[in-house]
């Protein structure tokens, strides 16, 4: 696996008018192609800041970000927007779907923005929604969908342009446990098809699905652990269905 993303000695300080707030303080992070990396840590540890910096949504105060060998932290706004549209997919805690568009149109949007034909965009969007188990919800407005369904639409949107990297900030953070499990299953499937994932999460279960778990504390990498292949589980007993 080659390095898709490399962040070196990243720092971010927010100037809030009073004392400057240090959100990140010298973070190194490498994500290889095909890898699933989870970022964990208590609230305020810098998870979201780190994601925003490596995904070109914000600029570091110091340090550098390379995306496939190209330094991106100093790119122009236009070039960054282009990179995000073509090569990155985003999944957020609160879905961030456009409320006035149907589910299908939400998924078509990134395709149309990168020059895909209307017909091809529709075909791709329908295919993705069907793959994610909501093929029948394409015409629905986001507000008429459950949280889990909205997050599936958001995931379809994130995958639409076959991005090099999908970045997720608490993708299961606003879902009930059943929907969270389903969305995690879909993320895991995408990873199984070779999708590179970088997710910030509070949920240990999401983190345990990753190849690597990076823990941040006070704006620094506290631990970076690689998880092994799943070991066989011996059940104390395996009764017939209740």
């Amino acid at each position, binding site marked *: 696996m080659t390095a898709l993303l490399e962040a070196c000695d990243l720092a971010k300080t927010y100037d809030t008018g009073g004392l400057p707030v240090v959100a990140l303080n010298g973070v190194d992070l490498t994500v290889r192609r095909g890898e699933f990396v989870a970022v964990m840590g*208590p609230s305020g540890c810098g998870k979201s800041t780190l994601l925003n910096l490596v995904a070109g949504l914000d600029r570091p105060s110091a340090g550098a970000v390379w995306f496939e060998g190209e330094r991106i932290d100093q790119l122009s706004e236009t070039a960054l927007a282009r990179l995000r549209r073509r090569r990155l997919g985003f999944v957020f805690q609160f879905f961030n779907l456009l409320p006035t568009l149907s589910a299908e149109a939400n998924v078509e949007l990134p395709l149309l923005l990168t020059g895909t034909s209307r017909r091809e965009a529709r075909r791709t969007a329908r295919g993705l929604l069907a793959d994610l188990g909501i093929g029948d919800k394409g015409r629905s407005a986001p507000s008429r969908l459950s949280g889990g369904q909205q997050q599936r639409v958001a995931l379809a949107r994130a995958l639409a342009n076959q991005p090099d990297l999908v970045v997720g900030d608490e993708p299961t953070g606003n879902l009930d446990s059943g929907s969270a499990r389903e969305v995690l*299953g879909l993320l*895991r499937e995408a990873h199984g098809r070779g999708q590179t994932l970088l997710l910030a999460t509070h949920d*240990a*279960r999401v*983190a*345990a*699905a990753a190849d690597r*778990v990076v823990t941040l504390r006070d704006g620094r990498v506290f*631990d970076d*652990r690689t*998880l*092994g292949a*799943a*070991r*066989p*589980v*011996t*059940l*104390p*007993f*395996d*009764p*017939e*269905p*209740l």
Partner: protein
Amino acid sequence: MALLSGGRGHGYELKQALEQEFGSLLPELNSGQIYSTLARLERDGLVEGESVADDNRGKKVYRLTERGREVLRSWVNVPVPGSRLKDAFFIKFVVATSVGLADPLTMIEQQRREYFQSLRDLDARLAANGHSPTTELMVEGAVLHLKADLGWLDLIEERLVAGGSAS
């Protein structure tokens, strides 16, 4: 006894039923254990055995007595204790760190790694096909306990760091 609540059965049938239900829980059941348990239950008046008429080897079928049924009912009706104060990691942690055998933060981190790996193992088990809904519930329960254990490690560490080194 629960196996007898639905009717009658002889030792061999009970052994088979037990193996089917709880096979991987019990290392190996020998017939002797089954028969001695039945004999003890009979002595205590919880089951009664009856020799089968046309059987010349003295085979007995057992059924629950009224008292046996009561004992079984109260076993079922009493909730299991809720608090789980005894924790294998914590015992190890307190012992090892109090005599300076291990660095507390290292112990916590090693345990955290194990819990993450266990979560991964359990999730993979759930993702595999061919398990019953009961198995799923069992594994989901273990997942929830593990998540609580991970939260607890965070708490131990937080207190440790806040209060200076514990060792």
